[in-house]
């Protein structure tokens, strides 16, 4: 019996060294809710969250999919030992289960979990910081993203590519400063199409939740897209959107309803 559709803030556990659910977490869960019909039809077998923090997102994903009764298996990782403990409490409070691993990104899981993950969710540490702050202990690891906020994101993307199944989907939070266009092109070279599921501007930042999925045509078109980026370099995110509308992988993405 699961009374909630997504996690309830009052049931989310906390710890001074663990990042509390914030605008970025809410945006990611709202994006999952917006894509709920597709997710339910997708019938994911294994769902993985990298960097689970308070557990708000993985608990919401589990609730949204109907928990393990639906035939999904949930795994969540965090580099911060306090975070996996807090996530465990948050999951218990909501009556859902996820297996937890205290590790850096998906280290230890990459070999055996290769090609098995049908849904991956990531709210990475995306805040631009000095590189020295990346991978620091405790709560700093939740936000410190190094130069352009890309240090950890750029480590996660190849791992995602390795772990995602043929039908795998990745939902990731990005900030304008992370250069989402460049992230999409990077993934395009790996053979992924992309779509912005949700865009939200807060007082402090402009967030985009991007969904990636494998698309055989993407890789072929990556070189054309690269040319577009070069000509528009430095023109900011407005041009990112206009570029995307020009690119055929964007159109094919819409037509396949992903």
């Amino acid at each position, binding site marked *: 019996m699961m009374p909630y559709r997504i996690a309830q803030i009052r049931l989310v556990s906390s710890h001074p060294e663990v990042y509390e659910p914030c605008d970025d977490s809410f945006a990611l869960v709202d994006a999952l809710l917006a894509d709920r019909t597709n997710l339910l039809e997708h019938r994911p077998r294994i769902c993985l969250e990298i960097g689970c923090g308070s557990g708000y997102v993985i608990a919401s994903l589990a609730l949204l999919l109907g928990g393990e009764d639906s035939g999904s298996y949930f795994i969540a990782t965090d580099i911060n030992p306090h975070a996996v403990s807090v996530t465990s409490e948050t999951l218990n409070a909501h009556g859902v289960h996820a297996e937890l691993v205290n590790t850096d990104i998906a280290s*230890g899981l990459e070999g055996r979990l290769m090609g098995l993950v049908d849904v991956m969710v990531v709210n990475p540490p995306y805040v631009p910081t000095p590189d020295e702050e990346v991978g620091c202990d405790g709560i700093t690891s939740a936000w410190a993203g190094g130069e352009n906020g890309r240090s950890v994101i750029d480590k996660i993307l190849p791992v995602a590519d390795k772990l995602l199944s043929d039908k795998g989907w990745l939902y990731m939070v990005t900030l304008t400063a992370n250069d989402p266009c460049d992230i999409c092109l990077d993934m395009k070279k790996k053979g992924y199409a992309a779509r912005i599921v949700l865009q939200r501007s807060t007082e402090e930042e402009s967030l985009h939740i991007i969904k990636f999925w494998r698309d055989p045509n993407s890789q072929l078109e990556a070189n054309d897209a690269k040319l577009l980026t070069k000509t528009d370099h430095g023109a900011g995110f407005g041009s990112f959107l206009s570029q995307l509308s020009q690119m055929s992988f964007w159109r094919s993405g819409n037509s396949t309803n992903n």
Partner: protein
Amino acid sequence: MRLLTHNMLSSNIKGVTNGFPLRIEVEKVVEKQVDFNPNFLKNMFSKIDYKALLEASRIMGYAELPDHADPSSLESDDFLRRFHHALLQLHLEEGSLVCPETGRKFPVNKGIPNMLLHEDEV
């Protein structure tokens, strides 16, 4: 930590080539009721290293899994129930996972394995 998760973990220490399966050292096992879902089990069977699951379940004190299993075993409800119990209902609550190549121990506390590496292992 369930044995399905154990089946998905390998030693991640730099230079280790044969890091699977991690040997389990048990301090505390707990059993938790999980709804029986034959479709999930049938889906997962091909992804599971059965030998690793068999050894792990025995170390965890469950001796009811047959020595051998193949896809035809999935037609047996009896097998599915044993497979279900071993894979999902046995939890390593406290103990260690030992790298088969180096002997390095990864602690499991409150059911959560700690796979974090020291600087010289990355």
